[in-house]
């Protein structure tokens, strides 16, 4: 398998793409955020499975995002997502507010190749009232009135995530973070960054194989040690709360966000 550079991966995301990203604790490829911003992408439709954090907030701050589809945007203990909140106030992005299981249902429908999945709840909420793409239908198996919500399949153009390892065949190990598999099953192409490449096939051992997303669903892999930092990666390293807190404070203004981006650029140049 050929491994790619981060810039190679960034070039596989076109303007206006529907880009799917995982929840913070599942494995976010934070290291891809800057190459995406550096490309000057515009008009992205970002879908968060099922919520978003620092990465989509940075993409919004950099002006790459036209629409965000998510159940929530949060920096966890560091507080609200600053660029997202500002963009909502200014009306500069379209928000498709969702609820977590509805986003999962949309990905499940895409995984199965069916037009929609149905889900309980949501009836009478303003979430549903503001989602004309969700339809209330009658349960066809019930004799009595039984309304239920139909969620259309979510088919992203691109998914990007980070996980601990890939093998030489392009299989990637996602452990029990099955939402990463949901993302890949539903997406046209999946781009993965990993901590390391292992020489033995991940499918050779049944214990490991249970946590493998096969290469069939993986378009390209790039190696990026600590690629989820500062958010953290399960089983590998914790979140850097001080750095996330610094982002939360500095990104409160557009100038602060720009200065934070530039400052981190300088820090990168210093180590490279």
């Amino acid at each position, binding site marked *: 398998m050929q491994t790619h550079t981060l810039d190679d991966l960034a070039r596989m995301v076109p303007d206006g793409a529907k880009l799917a990203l995982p929840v913070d604790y*599942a494995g976010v490829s934070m290291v891809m955020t800057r190459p995406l911003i550096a490309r000057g992408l515009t008009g992205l439709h970002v879908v968060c499975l099922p919520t978003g954090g620092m990465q989509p907030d940075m993409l919004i701050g950099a002006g790459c995002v036209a629409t965000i589809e998510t159940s929530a*945007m949060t920096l966890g203990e560091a507080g609200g997502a600053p660029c997202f909140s500002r963009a909502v106030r200014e009306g500069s992005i379209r928000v498709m*507010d969702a609820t*977590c299981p509805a986003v999962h249902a949309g990905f499940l429908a895409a995984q199965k190749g069916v037009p929609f999945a149905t889900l309980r709840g949501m009836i009478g909420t303003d979430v549903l009232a*503001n989602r004309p793409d969700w339809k209330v239908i009658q349960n066809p198996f019930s004799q009595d009135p039984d309304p239920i919500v139909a969620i259309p399949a979510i088919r992203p153009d691109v998914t990007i995530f980070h996980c601990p390892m890939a093998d030489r065949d392009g299989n990637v190990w996602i452990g029990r973070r099955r939402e990463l598999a949901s993302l890949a099953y539903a997406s046209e192409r999946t781009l993965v960054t990993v901590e390391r490449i292992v020489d033995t096939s991940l499918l050779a051992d049944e214990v490991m194989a249970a946590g493998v997303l096969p290469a069939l669903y993986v378009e390209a892999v790039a190696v990026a040690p600590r690629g989820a930092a500062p958010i953290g990666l399960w089983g590998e390293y914790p979140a850097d709360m001080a750095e996330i807190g610094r982002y939360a404070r500095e990104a409160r203004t557009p100038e602060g966000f720009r200065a934070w981006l530039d400052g981190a650029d300088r820090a990168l140049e210093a180590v490279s």
Partner: protein
Amino acid sequence: MSAVLPRERLIVTIARLLEGVRHVAVGASSPIPAAGAMLLRALAERQGKPRVRISILGSREHNFFTNGSAELFDCAGQGRIDAFFLGGGQIDGEANINLVGTGDYPQTPVRWPGSFGSSYLYFVVPRVILFREEHTPRVFVEKVDFVSAPGTSPEGVYRPGGPHTLLTGLGVFSFDKARKRFRLESVHPCHTLAEITAATGFAFDHDADVAQTADPDAETLALLRGRVLTELGETYPEFARQINVDIAGLDLKWAG
């Protein structure tokens, strides 16, 4: 009997509200509900009652799910979760909750993170405890600006779940689904009915003479300060450390 911290009283009250529950789920960054669930588990073990399972979202130690973040919702949809906690930037007198923002949607001047799983879990989890420590008129409003999840549903809508109790830093309310109305069940010590009425933007029922929220017995308090705070420290180290500091301060005050 030594003095009790207000937060310890909340934890003990949560354990009481969860009585009989077999599987309780707790959202990320909810140390007080998590502590209440852990106290329930410790009490059940001591009394030889059936095992209590606790799922703390986002925790590695207290998360036995292996099917990603969808598993919690699948579990809840099948009735495998008995209790859950919801909060909200706004909660109104009909138990509607708002996690999205204030003012006119979508360009809300104050924007909160979003509805998370509330628009679903409020419908399917039988015993939802609304928990918000801050008890002020900006939180407890007449009518929410955005309904993330409604307190009740019309007949014919699938709704096995919903609000069971509202617990705040000032008192405990029950909810009457038929009348769509809260009833103040008890006031925490050091607070008054008048204070609660002034801090609540909606009307609610209450007895002329409202009961006081019960303090824990010495045995329960010891269990909380021992085993439960140790367990809590694995997931919420900063919270557990702070409450231990506060307990030490209490003892000093009590001794003095």
